[in-house]
């Protein structure tokens, strides 16, 4: 493919402009060139993090941050799903299916809505690997300054770690997820 330096920007009428700068520092604006109401413009997290820290005086409480997805398109809402969830090479434990019972190196993990993701208002169990099925998260409104944001987090059912357990090596988990964006109808 071909690439260049600069940026293109979208105006409210659906046209976009190219700002370019040459090596001498001369800049120019070109356009409008093409309509852009079909442009996906989105911001999302790329890291998957959570913690269970029973030794930090937090019992078996599962702690996860909030993952924010921002629709920056002024024209279309977006439909968001999680279309992949995989264990990495460093993973040392198992995510269980619905029938599983958490152990020292396994737990049940769920994805749930924080704000704006109506398809996961009830927590959805995550089963990684080949058994994983795409999880619809919901639609996020077009950006208008205040809308256009969806947030999710993870929850977990963990093992009831007994105090004083011995001979248990530290465990590490390594998972990645992928979010998929589809565009909705143009907002008039």
């Amino acid at each position: 493919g071909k690439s260049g330096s600069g940026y293109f920007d979208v105006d409210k009428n659906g046209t976009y402009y190219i700002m370019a700068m040459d090596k001498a520092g001369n800049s120019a604006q070109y356009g409008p060139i093409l309509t852009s109401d079909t442009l996906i413009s989105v911001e999302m997290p790329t890291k998957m993090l959570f913690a269970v820290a029973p030794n930090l005086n937090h019992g078996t409480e599962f702690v996860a941050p909030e993952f924010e997805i921002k629709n920056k398109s002024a024209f279309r809402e977006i439909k968001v799903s999680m279309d992949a969830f995989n264990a990495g090479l460093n993973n040392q434990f198992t995510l269980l299916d619905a029938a599983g019972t958490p152990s020292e190196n396994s737990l049940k993990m769920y994805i749930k809505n924080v704000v704006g993701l109506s398809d996961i208002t009830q927590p959805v169990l995550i089963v990684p690997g080949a058994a994983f099925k795409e999880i619809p998260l919901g639609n996020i409104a077009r950006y208008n300054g205040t809308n256009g944001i969806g947030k999710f987090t993870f929850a977990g059912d963990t093992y009831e770690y007994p105090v004083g357990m011995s001979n248990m090596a530290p465990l590490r988990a390594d998972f990645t997820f992928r979010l998929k964006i589809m565009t909705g109808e143009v907002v008039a």
Partner: protein
Amino acid sequence: MGKHQAKRKKVPIVAVVVVVIAAVAVVIGVISGWFTRLPEFFVDSAVQTGELTANMSKQEIEEYLQETVDKSKFLFNINARPTFENGTAEGDLLIQNPIENAYGMKVTITLDDTGETVYQTDGILPGQYILMDKLDKPLSKGEYAATAVLTAYDGDKEIGQSAAGLVISVKA
């Protein structure tokens, strides 16, 4: 109780070791394994420099996780409906890695029906874009459901992926 307290006195020494190791996942695990031998697990898609200590409150852990995730945000633009006049013509892909991104990216487009890769970029750095380009594999007239996978890189290290559903139109 006395034995338990004796173990806790070692926290600062180990905390230094943990910082040197500079791995968030290892930090919690080491703290757990060395001082109470309880199992701990911590997930990350990439090892980070650790600032966790044995004295962190739950709120401090949450804030640390949140800060790490927020720093991993990735912004991209791509045309969901690229159009090509014919199978060998350039189309309006409008792929952009915005300058505010911290990561480079590569894009691969595959057809949903066949899984066939029809377009693949090399690295696109923050502030760079591809407006128009030809597909690597010419397509005949029609509309094709496809998925663009955008892979974010920190240097040569892959840090995450996002995906976008596309409909590729070839007019003739």
